């Protein structure tokens, strides 16, 4: 019996938002107003180990309220571990994790009551119908807003009485999202939400995410290994590699501070000139091919282009080139690799 309950528990957590069954505090005890000004997520120097293997290695990450934060990383980089830690499923081995101002270990129920979660596995009970699973979630939840769930069910045009087993993968993901919104969460955690969706389902899903859910002021934190999804809907981006955050920031700012400067010399530049370029402030990498030199720049590329023009060598052209997220991400992901 205990095993069955554990299984139910496990499965329920996968399915819906998180619905703690007991109130540990009276309502009067928990509206600390200062929390509403804290970041949606605040991870400080987090370490998570599986046995001897360190899955997360001193990770620090902040997600501002109201943002759509896309966590990009290859499979096995630690994305799911981070999301499970945010939910309190995985206690940290080091560091601290605060969600909506609450400590995920000591105030787990507070976190769960305000967070919606859609898991990657998406193991909904296949033998239930949509109304049945709604009833199930309502019964196990502290606060349930069926009106919100119904609104999103209609928006996705999900068939009213269908058994979950009969739904397509895209529909199940949409249903999981509807259920995750049932406790009217302030923060939505989505683990690989678009993986395996067809183009139309993906578009509808993303458009609802930003046009409806984020536009209501909810914070969205989602993981993905698909760059196109992150660059389309996210306004904040984090790039994870082997349990470390190699880059994090506002996407628009990243584009403004990561550029390429393309320099064409009149004559083949000597090695000393290339060294001088490498030493210029903001230059992270210099690649030469004959008279053409490419500088990867962080910071003010226009200022750098001006100082290149002032070098005592004849130049044919100096051009500042914008980089998209793919270019920026690849540079960070490949940095330091053999």
């Amino acid at each position, binding site marked *: 019996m205990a095993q069955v309950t554990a299984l139910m528990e496990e499965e329920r957590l996968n399915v819906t938002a998180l619905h703690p069954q007991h109130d540990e505090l009276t309502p009067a005890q928990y509206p600390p107003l200062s929390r509403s000004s804290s970041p949606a997520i605040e991870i400080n120097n987090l370490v998570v180990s599986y046995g001897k293997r360190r899955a997360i290695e001193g990770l620090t990450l902040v997600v501002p309220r*109201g*943002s*759509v934060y896309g966590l990009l990383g290859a499979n096995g980089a630690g994305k799911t571990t981070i999301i499970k830690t945010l939910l309190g499923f995985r206690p940290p081995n080091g560091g601290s994790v605060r969600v909506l101002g609450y400590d995920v270990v000591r105030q787990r129920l507070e976190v769960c009551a305000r967070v919606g979660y859609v898991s990657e596995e998406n193991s909904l009970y296949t033998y239930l119908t949509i109304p049945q699973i709604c009833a199930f979630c309502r019964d196990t939840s502290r606060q349930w807003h069926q009106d919100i769930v119904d609104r999103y069910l209609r928006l996705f045009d999900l068939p009213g009485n269908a058994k979950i087993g009969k739904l397509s993968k895209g529909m199940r993901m949409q249903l999981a999202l509807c259920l995750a919104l049932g406790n009217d969460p302030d923060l939505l955690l989505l683990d690989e939400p678009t993986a395996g969706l067809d183009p139309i389902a993906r*578009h509808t899903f*993303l*458009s*609802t995410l*930003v*046009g*409806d859910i*984020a*536009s209501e002021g909810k914070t969205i934190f989602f993981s993905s290994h698909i760059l*196109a999804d992150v*660059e*389309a*809907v*996210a*306004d904040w981006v984090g790039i994870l590699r082997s349990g470390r955050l190699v880059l994090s920031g506002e*996407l*628009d*700012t990243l*584009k*403004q501070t990561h*550029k390429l400067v393309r320099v064409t010399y009149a004559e083949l530049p000597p090695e000393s000139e290339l060294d001088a370029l490498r030493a210029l402030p903001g230059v992270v990498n210099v690649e030469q091919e004959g008279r053409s030199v490419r500088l990867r720049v962080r910071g003010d590329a226009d200022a750098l282009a001006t100082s290149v023009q002032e070098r005592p060598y004849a130049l044919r052209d100096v051009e500042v*080139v*914008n*980089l*998209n997220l*793919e*270019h920026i991400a690849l540079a960070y992901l490949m940095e330091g690799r053999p």
Partner: protein
Amino acid sequence: MPNWLDVNPRSGVPIYVQLVEQIRHALEVGILRPGDHLPTVRQLAGELTIAPNTIVKAYSELENLGLIESRPGVGTTVTANLNGTLHAQQQSALFERLRGVVRDASHMNISEDDLRARFAAEVERFYHNEHDEG
């Protein structure tokens, strides 16, 4: 949804900058006129599948430039009249090009007299031949 608005998330140009430029262009060519309404943040976020904060950022930039105004209950409306500024810009770009031609000619050691003669001949040919033919 205005069909003249279209962002490319794959571009290296920040999305909010793309929005600012496209809306400013719509003002300059007269697609948008004072008093016209811009879509709500929610509408644009859903239609363009971009984060709402990105649109908020673009709108506040346009507001700082004095081109639009957002008011609760009213929405976002166009306040500036940029109609005609495009013509002025094109004109100044043209004269800039002329300046470039003169500079390039001098770099290529074409004499002042020669350049003047060429320019006069070009003007002559355009206006007089056109009139003769017309």
